[in-house]
């Protein structure tokens, strides 16, 4: 038991603080080995050609072909984020204003479960209901509405619907705390001063919720921007998204300079991390305001 006693029982804070950092070494090493260094390698590789610093690969990444992929991805992310924010907030408000506690908790749990869904099984479920012989498609046909060929589940509009399946629940979970923060007295005060419900929402509630809605939008945007599995299962290479292009470059299906894939990756990384950083900044600020 000599080892036991050799461990300092109550170290003085000042003298041992740098030694204490040693305890974090395994974790920091992990971060270096599998996060920072691989990322820096990719950044360096995207910026060098035969040992020289160059922006050549970023110039190539600005080709109309890739700009279209970026454009599609941004459009898809913005649409699903916006619809997710609107519908998610609406449903969240319906949930918190329900009197039954069982219904409230049940629906929150459902949002909790479904926001973790995504990828292949989700994509497949949407083929089952909205594919060319899907159940909803048949249902619409029976009442005289022909979804196909104007609509296809294997397209950007199909993807938008599928993405909403995990975007909406995420927004519900994000916005519920802010909705609960709206005090009943504010509504009463507004009504006493002669405001209609509509005026209360547009002049009081929505301005208060605005930062939370924006931060929700940013996180949903990032969530959809980085998504790959759902899109790939649903549409294969039919839909031109930047993640699908990068994946094709990795698998070597398309023969191009590997450094070009690096440049495209770094560009998508910048867009996605800007959204996440914006989200974190806004939520931290909201926390400080509340405190």
């Amino acid at each position, binding site marked *: 038991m000599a080892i036991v006693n050799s461990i300092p029982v109550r170290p003085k804070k000042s003298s041992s603080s740098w030694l204490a950092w040693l305890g*974090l070494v395994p974790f920091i090493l*992990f*971060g270096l080995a599998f*996060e920072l260094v691989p990322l820096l390698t990719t950044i360096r590789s995207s910026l060098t050609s035969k040992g020289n610093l160059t922006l050549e690969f970023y110039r190539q990444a600005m080709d109309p072909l890739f700009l279209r992929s970026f454009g599609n991805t941004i459009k898809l992310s913005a649409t699903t984020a916006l619809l997710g924010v609107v519908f998610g907030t609406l449903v969240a408000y*319906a949930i918190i204003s329900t009197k039954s506690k069982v219904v409230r908790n049940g629906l929150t749990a459902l949002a909790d*479960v479904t926001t973790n869904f995504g990828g292949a*099984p989700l994509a497949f*479920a949407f083929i089952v209901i909205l594919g060319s012989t899907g*159940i909803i498609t048949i249902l619409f046909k029976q009442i005289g509405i022909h979804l196909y060929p104007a609509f296809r589940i294997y397209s950007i509009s199909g993807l938008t619907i599928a993405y909403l399946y995990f975007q909406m629940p995420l927004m519900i979970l994000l916005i519920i705390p802010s909705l609960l923060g709206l005090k009943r007295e504010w509504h009463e005060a507004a009504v006493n001063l002669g405001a209609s419900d509509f005026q209360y929402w547009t002049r009081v509630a929505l301005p208060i919720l605005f930062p939370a809605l924006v931060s929700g939008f940013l996180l949903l945007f990032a969530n959809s921007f980085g998504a790959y599995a759902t899109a790939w299962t649903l549409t294969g290479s039919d839909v031109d998204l930047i993640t699908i292009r990068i994946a094709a470059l990795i698998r070597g299906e398309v023969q191009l300079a590997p450094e070009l*894939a690096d440049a495209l990756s770094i560009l998508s990384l910048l867009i996605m991390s800007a959204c996440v950083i914006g989200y974190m900044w806004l939520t931290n600020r909201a926390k400080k305001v509340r405190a």
Partner: protein
Amino acid sequence: MKTRDAWRILVITLFLLFMIVPVIATLLFSFSTRWDRSLWPEGWTLNWWIAVTSHKAFLLTLKNSFIASFATMFCLLVLVTPTAYWMELRVPKGKPIVELISSFSFGVPGVVLALALIRFYSKIPLPIINHPTILVAACMVLSLPFMYRPVANALEAIDFRVLTEAAQSMGANGWVILTRVIIPNIMSGIISGCLLVFSTVFTEYTLTNLLVGTRFKTFPIYLVEFTRQDGRQASALAVISFVVAWITSLLIIWATSKGGREATHIIGR
């Protein structure tokens, strides 16, 4: 008041339909003989289930997914728990660094993480490229926030300083304090973390596909293969995925309701 209730019921009903119809439809589809020209399945059968579960690859991919999930879970547990405890206790200044490493995967698309790992590890002479090891490492990065957050929250919720000092005064060493005092007290956080990691890795497709591909086939890889070949059998696999996801999620809700509740969700599909 009446119209407000009607509005709420309408919104909630539409939401429920949207969330539940795809799952139920997939379930019915997997048991129906034919369901592509009528409103209701034309008949019922177990054929698709029997066919898909009798492939040799079925059990193999299921096994591989469990191996990847549990390996990731175990490695993260060993890496995160002592680090989080040590940091809170002795190196509070290290918190921003630990949190930055933990939330890395939130800001990085899966395809970019895969590309960066391939770029770096194909250059250095370490034989982990194309090997399940690199997949586990990548899954660790991906699910690090889901292990770190619940564990850190659970630690903040208990008085770990007092517990540590009490144990020290009775002569317990660091290892004993961690395993016998701290860990039992943050069990609910650890369980939620493990379950979140499990459900992330079990359904992981992007990293698996790009890092190991067909060399280490997991369940989602098998499922996607079938969606291209045979939709009927794919539907049975999708149902299994849904069931696993639902069970883990319900367990997470149960575990978090035991401890301090904190919204934890998986983002970045």
